[in-house]
Each structure stands twice: as C-alpha cells, then as structure tokens.
C-alpha cells in the first residue's frame, strides 16, 4: 500500500519532469528535466521492486544511476564544445 503511494508520487514527478522536458525553451532546461527523469526512473525501479516483492531490480537501478551521469556529462560536453572528442580545458570562444 505505502509502496503503491510512493510509486504514484514518483510517477507524478516523472510526468511533471516530462512536461518540462517537452516545454523547455533552452537545451539546458531539457537537460535538467532529463536528469530528473533519470533519477525518477531509478527511484521507480527501486519502489517497484519493493512493491512486487522482488528487490532484484536494484541492480538495474545502480546501472541506470551510473549511465545517467555519463549521459548528462556527454550531452553537456557536446553542446558546449560541439565535439565529443574535444580535450576540454580552455573555454570555447
């Protein structure tokens, strides 16, 4: 029961984040929303594992948490330097 309520709250949070990702004026708004969607997906996996009595979904949650930060940094680097293989360092003019 309480895990169902928590899963519903996570779903509401995901819906609001999806609305911001669709309506965001800049690409950074969409990135904030996508990051929030990733965190919500991890929490939904964990809560759903407890809801169905199979907490093995947590491994997938750990994997999603590791992929989320890598994806965020990769997309930000692409939009900042215009190249994923850029060495970074100096600011682009």
């Amino acid at each position, binding site marked *: 029961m*309480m*895990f169902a*309520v*928590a899963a519903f*709250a*996570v779903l*509401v*949070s*995901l819906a*609001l*984040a999806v*609305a*911001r990702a669709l309506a965001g004026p*800049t690409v*950074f*708004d969409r*990135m*904030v*929303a996508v*990051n*929030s969607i990733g*965190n*919500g997906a*991890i*929490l939904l996996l*964990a*809560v759903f594992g*407890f809801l169905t009595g199979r*907490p093995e979904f*947590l*491994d997938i*949650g*750990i994997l999603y*948490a*590791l992929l*989320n*930060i890598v994806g*965020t*940094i990769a997309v*930000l680097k692409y*939009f*900042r330097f215009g190249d994923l293989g850029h060495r970074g360092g100096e*600011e*682009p003019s």
Partner: protein
Amino acid sequence: MSLELAADIVTGICLAIGSFFLVVGSIGLLRMPDVFTRMHATSVSDTLGAGFLIIGMMVQAGFTLVTVKLLIILAIFFFTSPLSTHALARGALAVGLKPALFDRNGRKRSKELDLIRDFGVVEVRDVPPATPTDPAHAEKKERQKRRTGRRGASKPKSKGGRSSKR
C-alpha cells in the same frame, strides 16, 4: 510482530516525506522561471526526496544485501547530483544564459548582474535610480541601507567608500 509493525510505521513515514519532497521538487522544476532556479528546485527532489525514499526502503529491507544496494544508489545520488548540476550551470553560463532577476513589481532587472558576477557585492547606491520619485525603489534602497548597516563587518567599509565618494 511488534518490531515489524514499527518498521512498517517508520517506512511509511519516510516514504510519505520522500514522496512529498519529490513532488515538490518536480512542481518547482515545472514552475520556476529560469534554468538556474529550475536546477535549484531539482536538487530538492534529488537529495531529500530520493534520500527519504531510499531510507524508507532500507528500513523495510533490514540487514540484507538489498540495503547495501540501496546504500550504493544513495551514494551515487549524493555524488553525481551536484556534479551534473555544476556542469549544467557552467554550460549554461558559458553559452550565455543569465539568471533572471525580478524586482518586487515583477519587472526584470539586468543591471545588477554585472555587479553580482564580481563576487556578489551588489551596491545599489552607485546605480542611479531610474525614477527618483518611485516609492518602491526608495523603499528598496532604504532596505538595502539597513541591511548593510546591520552587518557589522562590512559597515565601516561601506561608510568609508561613501564618504570618499562624496
């Protein structure tokens, strides 16, 4: 029996608090006017919401491997959420997005941004007022003067600057 009931009660409370903060952070993400304030609202749901949800599930799981996995997820959250937020803010500033500032009448202000950028000292008295008879502006100026007067450390510095300016 009683221990399980206590664990259930603690889990329910933690899940309720976590759900509340998660929904509040997402409402802030949808309603805030700016990229930077949206990041600020997201950090609420990333720390408090996820933290309370995972603590509730840890109480429910007990001393098993599941608790360790939840602890790993919590540690990943706590390390990567400031990292991604910092990268997002730096990227937005490098592209040229500026934080939106509003005064109390709802108009956007951009004149203080150049002052904020040099380590956050806003000196309103150097900016000439747009309309000197505006009561809202005078009230804001008065409030600023009181606030600088209340801080003990910056008080003689600002007074010295003002007297030398005159």
